[in-house]
């Protein structure tokens, strides 16, 4: 099948699926949500559908996968079809099963990493915007300095220092990402702290923690969620790039970033196996951002 034909079929297919999905949602949901569902653009429906499928796969991976995550089931690089729908990988493990388990590991790790980066980055960013003065200056200069160091090389340094368990991987990528989150949170919060309701709360004598938690954070959520969508997807790429430089996720755990790296050479010979994990990442990225775009659009109140 030539590429354009495949692309067109893919687009048509996802269009139809999204349409059906949206129609189903607007029937199945209670009235309020049904209106939202009926209202959403097809892209958003598609995004939600994909995310839902991924979550389902991640949660029920052991039930869905025909083989175990790390089980060697046969010869390497078996072709598609037969017992192994998507063939086997370089060690003879079932590709489909690893993709399915990969959803669990990759999405889990990416989520944990991004969540951590946001908890730390957003808290510090908002705090700096709220307090201003020397605290803001010190934090911002320090973050500036960290951001001036290329992130991949910085991650490489840190991982070499602290080792490469899943935990350190999460911590290191989160630390590097947190600088970016800090910056955006700070600028968003700076827009919020000048609002009268913050002034009212300050005059009331509220502490920083209450201001951040109840007054600023709920209002900063929309742009932060948008950033979350992108950052979430970048984590896969970072893991993949780190894997390219010889670090990354602990084998034999299946994760898409490392799977792309492990099988990447095959693309040189026109074998599309490495496209599978890469495609899985791409699809999720696109889906998440469709949903995020839609949410932003709703939040901004900009009409169609």
């Amino acid at each position, binding site marked *: 099948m030539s590429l354009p034909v495949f692309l067109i079929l893919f687009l048509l297919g996802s269009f139809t699926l999204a349409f059906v999905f949206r129609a189903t949602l607007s029937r199945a949901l209670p009235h309020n949500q049904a*209106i*939202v569902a*009926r*209202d959403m653009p097809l892209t958003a429906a598609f995004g939600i559908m994909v995310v839902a499928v991924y979550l389902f796969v991640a949660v029920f991976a052991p039930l869905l996968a025909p083989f175990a995550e790390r089980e060697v089931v046969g010869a390497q690089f078996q072709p598609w079809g037969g017992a192994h729908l998507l063939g086997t990988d370089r060690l003879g493990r079932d590709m489909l099963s690893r993709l399915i388990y990969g959803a669990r590991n990759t999405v889990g790790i990416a989520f944990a990493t991004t969540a951590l980066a946001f908890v730390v980055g957003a808290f510090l960013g908002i705090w700096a915007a709220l307090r201003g003065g020397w605290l803001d200056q010190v934090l911002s200069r320090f973050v500036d300095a960290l951001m001036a160091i290329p992130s991949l090389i910085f991650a490489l340094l840190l991982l070499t220092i602290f080792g490469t368990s899943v935990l350190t991987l999460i911590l290191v990528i989160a630390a590097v990402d947190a600088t970016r989150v800090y910056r955006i949170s700070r600028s968003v919060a700076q827009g919020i702290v000048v*609002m*009268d*309701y913050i*002034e*009212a*709360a*300050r*005059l*009331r*004598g*509220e502490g920083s923690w209450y201001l951040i938690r*109840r*007054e600023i954070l*709920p*209002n900063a*959520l929309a742009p932060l969620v948008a950033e979350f969508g992108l950052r979430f997807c970048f984590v896969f790429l970072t893991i993949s790039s780190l894997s390219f430089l010889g670090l990354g996720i602990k084998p034999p755990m299946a994760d898409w970033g490392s799977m792309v790296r492990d099988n990447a050479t095959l693309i040189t010979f026109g074998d599309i196996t490495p496209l599978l994990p890469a495609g899985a990442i791409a699809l999720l990225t696109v889906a998440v951002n469709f949903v995020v775009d839609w949410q932003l659009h709703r939040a901004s109140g*900009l*009409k*169609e």
Partner: protein
Amino acid sequence: MTDTPLLSIRDLHIEGRAGEAWLPIIKGVDLTLHRGEVLGLIGESGAGKSTLGLAAMGYARDGCRISGGEIVFDGIDLRSASERRKRSLRGRRIAYVAQSAAASFNPAHKLIDQYAEAPLFHEVMTRAQAQSDAVKLYDKMRLPNPAEIGFRYPHQVSGGQLQRAMTAMAMACRPDLIIFDEPTTALDVTTQIEVLAAIRDIVRQFDTAAIYITHDLAVVAQMADRIKILLRGEQVEEADTRTMLAAPRAAYTKSLWAVRSFARALQPPATDAPIVSVRGVTAAYGKTPVLHNVSFDIHAGRTVAVVGESGSGKSTTARVITGLLPPTAGEVLLDGKALPPDYRARSRAQLRQCQMIYQMADTALNPKLPLREIIGRPAEMYLGLKGRALRERVRALLDMIELEPDAYIDRLPGELSGGQKQRIGIARALAADPQVVICDEVTSALDQIVQEGILRLLDKLQGELGLAYMFITHDLATVRAIADDVVVMQHGAIVEQGAKAQVFAPPHAPYTELLLSSVPEMHPDWLSNLLAARQSQT
């Protein structure tokens, strides 16, 4: 006037999108406008005045659609005309002057470039022609330095001048019709006069037809030949200006005319010690001085109105009192004791005593918190109320501001109207059980009927709770209605202060005089007379 009207709108229906559904905004309005005629369009916010005005250009905002009726401009059916056709009319034959000139001028381009834009792409004149024409029109609009002002950027020009420049820009192609959408609402009263006069003159001079949209009856009385009144998308009545002013027929119109009736009962002069005493306060933002030696007192149960135009320092005074801006000299006393200049150094009890209500209820209420928490938080913090007691207190406060507790307690601010939001602002201030409430332009963003309600509420609460109000406003009508004492400010200093009767009775300080005389009155000849009077003085 000829028989064929310039603009004819029949049974117009416009809908706005609310989620999936379309809600009606304009419900079958007719409108006829002849050449050279000025129609005043009056209504509260949400009445659909702007929507109707834009529809006259065949234009519906994003999220709106014209769903029925016809719009015929000079024989052209705007509903069926192509986008291209409509574009060729807009700016050339129908022009628009927006409410906020500051926001409606593109900040990236010079005034002259924006002026010349429409004439150039409508190919009405060349750039050189447009430029020299602009100077003439700027001159006619009585803009200072008309030859050069066009080469400034919007932010370099004051609001009143911008509004006049925008009118000039609308005139650039000598349109047949101009839509004025609240062109003076955002301006100070003294500036408003100049703009109104300039607009009126130029419209008359070029014999341009106009639709003048406003919520201010006194203003429209000066500008319009005829007045049409809208209420929630429906027309209430229409008549020529003098008739309308003299003999309104519809009940709604009468209620509009009646809003200025509220006035607080006169209070005896204060004898007790003031609660808050501002003593010789001088303050600056960075190195820019903003307040000079400001002193006045606020007594329990009384209202001090601080009045002045924008930039006069009245809000800054409030910031000094609340401790947001520590003064460079002077002090603020609470119950005779000096308050720490910075609010962060004040005790919780001190903070509690002085509460603030803001002008923009939209930005003063956290849109993500339910009313329960917005109102409950001060009570929880200052009075230590919890659980049931807190809930009861919140309900009592909602009752006090005349909102049904069960219906509102769990709502978000976004689900309230402007007036209701302002009531929540009041409830939040009261929740702290304060002695002093600073009201910063609390009514100026509201429709007059709503203003009335808020003022009455504030008055009632003052009676019940013995509160002291510091009432910051630029609106002299409000001052008349609610003040016991008046402080007039200009350029960061107090020009005049005293009991209301004393300040409002002649002889006035010159600035007070200017302020007082600039307040439009509901008389069609008021503007002409005033201008004539001022002319003769100079």
